[in-house]
């Protein structure tokens, strides 16, 4: 078994309104920053042990499907790196 960190990023599907991101963007603009758009996402860093990278990715993907993301409004992606 090898130690991995699976990073799951959960974001709203394209076109779904994100009022918190809009509020954050307005706050940045009030601070004088110029920006065209801002998107927010949730990132989960999951340390786990697995047979190989594919197995780690599959398990993290199941976690996203069953809890971390809501498929009605979210997309997600998984990146796996070997832990030191």
């Amino acid at each position: 078994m090898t130690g991995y960190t699976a990073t799951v990023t959960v974001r709203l599907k394209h076109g779904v309104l994100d009022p918190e991101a809009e509020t954050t963007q307005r706050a940045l603009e009030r601070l004088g920053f110029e920006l065209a758009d801002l998107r927010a996402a949730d990132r989960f860093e999951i340390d786990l042990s697995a047979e190989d990278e594919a197995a780690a990715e599959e398990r993290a993907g199941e976690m996203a499907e069953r809890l971390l993301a809501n498929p009605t409004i979210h997309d997600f992606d998984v990146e796996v790196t070997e832990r030191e």
Partner: protein
Amino acid sequence: MSVAVLRFGGSNCDRDAVRALADVGVDAELVWYKEGLPADVSGVVIPGGFSYGDYLRAGAMAAREPIVEEVRERAGEVPILGVCNGAQIGSEAGLTPGAFTVNRSARFQCEHVHLRVETTDTPFTAAFDAGDVISLPIAHGEGRFETESEAAYEELVAEDRVLFRYCDADGNVTDEANPNGSRGNVAGVVGEDRTTAVLMPHPERATLADLHAGTDGRGVLEGFA
């Protein structure tokens, strides 16, 4: 036989629901989520509150508790109603379609709203006539109804599965009367079985006449009678 009102850590409308149900003549009891669902329930209320502190997403954690699986097994046999956080739990669990997410205002909103009755073909709206305008309170930060697509929304409408829409005092469904940005001003929906429903407004807070919040919620809770 009585209605089970589920109680999770963070539920806070559970006792209100029991009291309001009693007022419409329905026997109800609190059920701590770890105890499991009694075998002889005549209905289930998933009440409002802030289960698991709304961590991750409102309702996400409670929706994965074993008692919700037991509720799912009874769907279609007994009436099931999720209110506010209970609606979020019900949709997170897939008991009903769609999702409730952050209000358009990005704020928690606590106010009285008008609702137009859409379908009357559910236990929770059978007491009304289609087009009736009723008033109930809302109190939520994540109540904006969303579907996975416009087509999914249109399918719900075509199947007559919208309980209520937010409207003005005259029953006009307008953007101004939409408190949270819900798609189609939808405030509640019913599952395919037509007896499992969720809604963000609080019928139990508008049932007891001496609370002076109106009594329009009675008709919803009479769905358990």
